[in-house]
């Protein structure tokens, strides 16, 4: 499932969208989605991800460019002829119909006969373990149950592509995590293609084959979850996905896949160059809190270390979270596993922190 899919199932080709004719909400979007893929569009609100989904569903028209579904241009195809299943943010279950009638609706408008409809409805309801609820009204169901019905309704007419617009946003944490796995399993067992929109990075990391991180109307990075987390392409992605320490500095030396960065306060640190190309360039070094080490035996030989003072230690159960003063900044975070032999730090302790060079990524300055 690489980006060089020539026979992509869904393709955005140089798509642009403007609402007011003065500014672009989506700027030059190119995206290929393979058959059977689970692709998540992730980004802050206003980043253009929902607009992209609405263009794919047919509720918005692309101002420029082409959207293809299974090889055919669908720019001019009305939503009801696209055959795309969709799960909405607030489920959009028809309140005046029972669960069974809700599921029957897409089959009726397709002119299916009664026995076919009943068989399909039963299969779809069983699939989401809601077989006993066909005669209830949506208002009589809990949020999680409504969510399952919305899912069943989007799948009952066997669409090849299913769009989900923040479908779990209204559920509580525990239920949300449970539903994430159920949706993932449905996707795997049915072999459908899913385009999923969310602003919850945890959800995106858990469920997706690939994630497209949106910001400012552009895809900032398109990659599988592990790549996205461990090898962010730029400062935005690094900052948006997971927690992240940022150290501004200048490239002191550059050799192959290693860079030496001089911080504003004079210390030298190791890093991996990502989008820096020459000495003297300004950069922002990004390090994950759980990859910061303070025990010399955990660091590679000859690693540069940097002085730190413990300001605060927060007990979070499975981990300990320490806030340090590093290079003149007060918000450097280090996470330690809460194991039996773990060193207990107290505020005021003086440390030397360091890391593997591949964990520190020298990115573009913001």
């Amino acid at each position, binding site marked *: 499932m690489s980006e060089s899919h020539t026979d992509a199932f869904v393709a955005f080709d140089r798509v642009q969208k403007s609402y007011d004719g003065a500014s672009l909400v989506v700027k030059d979007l190119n995206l290929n989605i393979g058959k059977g893929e689970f692709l998540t569009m992730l980004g802050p609100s206003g980043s253009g991800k929902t607009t992209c989904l609405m263009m794919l*569903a*047919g*509720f918005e028209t692309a101002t420029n460019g082409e959207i293809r579904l299974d090889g055919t241009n669908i720019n001019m195809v*009305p*939503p*009801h*002829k*696209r*055959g*795309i*299943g*969709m799960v*909405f*943010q*607030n489920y*959009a279950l*028809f*309140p*005046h119909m029972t669960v069974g009638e809700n599921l029957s*609706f*897409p089959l009726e*408008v*397709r002119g299916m006969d009664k026995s076919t409809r009943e068989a399909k409805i039963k299969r779809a309801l069983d699939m989401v373990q809601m077989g006993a609820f066909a005669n209830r009204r949506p208002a009589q169901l809990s949020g999680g149950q409504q969510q399952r019905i919305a899912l069943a*309704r*989007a799948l009952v*007419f066997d669409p090849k592509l299913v*769009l989900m617009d923040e479908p779990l946003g209204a559920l509580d944490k525990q239920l949300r995590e449970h539903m994430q796995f159920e949706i993932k399993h449905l996707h795997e067992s049915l072999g459908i293609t899913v385009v999923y929109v969310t602003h919850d990075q945890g959800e995106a990391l858990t469920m997706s084959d690939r994630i497209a991180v949106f910001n400012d109307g552009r895809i900032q990075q398109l990659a599988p979850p592990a790549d996205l987390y461990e090898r962010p392409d730029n400062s935005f992605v690094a900052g948006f996905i997971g927690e992240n320490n940022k150290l501004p500095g200048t490239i002191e030396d550059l050799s192959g896949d290693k860079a030496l960065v001089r911080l504003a306060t004079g210390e030298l640190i190791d890093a991996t160059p990502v989008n820096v190309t020459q000495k003297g360039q300004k950069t922002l070094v990004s390090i994950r809190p759980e990859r910061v080490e303070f025990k010399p035996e955990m660091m590679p030989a000859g690693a540069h270390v940097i002085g730190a003072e413990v300001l605060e230690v927060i007990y979070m159960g499975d981990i300990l979270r320490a806030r340090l003063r590093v290079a003149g900044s007060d918000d450097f975070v280090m996470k330690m596993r809460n194991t039996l032999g773990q060193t207990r730090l107290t505020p005021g302790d003086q440390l030397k922190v360091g890391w593997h060079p591949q964990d520190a990524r020298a990115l573009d300055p913001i």
Partner: protein
Amino acid sequence: MTTSDGRPLKSALATAQRRAKRRAFLLVLPLLAFIVITFILPIGQLMHQAIYNDGFSANMPRTTAWFAETPPGTPPDEAAWEALAHDLRDAAAARTVGVVGTRVNYEMSGTRSLFTSTARGAARFEPPYREALIASDPKWDDPVLWGTMRQVSDAYSANFFLAALDMTRDVNGKIVPMPEDRQIYVSLFVKTFLLAGLITFTCFLLGFPIAHLLATLPMKWSNLLMILVLLPFWTSLLVRTTSWMVLLQTQGVVNNSLVALGIIGEDGRIQMIYNQMGTIIAMTHILLPFMILPLYSVMRPIPPSYVRAARSLGATSWTAFRRVYLPQTLPGVGAGSLLVFILAVGYYITPALVGGASGQLISNLIAFHMQNSLNWSLASALAALLLAAVLVLYWIYDRLVGIDNLKLG
């Protein structure tokens, strides 16, 4: 169940809530008193008047007593003639003979002058009274007149309701239809309900798209549109109605424009006012906001995702509208239609001004009996029938749609 100190839980709860309940009751008391005094009592009085009229019995006590003592159909004996002569004399002195004549005249036309002219000479009547009265006017010998007087001597009577339904009693007290040329009320009721239904339907046809626009346009535009919808509310009813006269009369703006555009000829000007059409146009305009506002209040909270969901599930825009959007607006459609229909059924001023002869509704006739013919009892009976019909409609609506399915705002 008891509380921890052993009192029954129910009475403890009642004590705890008593103060709040009393305060709530005292707060609504002024409104309650206002409604009872200015609304319930007058309406009750009016309803009573529809079945009670003592115009005869209060002013002709002796004759009334004679009718009470004798069985129906008894020919008048000398005692009856004497009672009549004395009553007429007293009524003339008290200047109430007009009231008596009017009351009898309601049931038997042409009798008012008989009472007033006979009463003028009643002081000089001497026994035998039968001959004296017949000498004064031979009509007194008419058994139909005596039958009618017997009927009206009872202050309580259903005759006004019979009259309001184009029926009357014959000499024997049997209920029969009015002569054809005097049947007006039933057909007017039918016309009123048909016109009100038509006005409700046009209001729905015009109001639905406007309400939908109001509910879906961006705030900036919907506010402007809302002001336009509400503008008629802030203009005097009289001004609005008279401006329709300016627009619609044969030499009015609309006809002049049509002639100027060559669509109709100078001699083909359309009569759009002072007939049913005028009533329909002007009342549709006046009642339109009452349809739009309930519709709008129901449409506003319907999120666009419902129609989108229907579309994504394969429905054409028409199917999505018919099967998903329209059913959700039904409480508003019901509320708006009921409101407009009930207002239209009882509307008075607009049909009076622009309705001409053919555009008059039942309320115009009620007003006529109140103000011109002064037959308050008949007016009350007509009004009571109108009220009953509206209540029946309300009941049917409740059975068909359910009154909980009504949303006014």
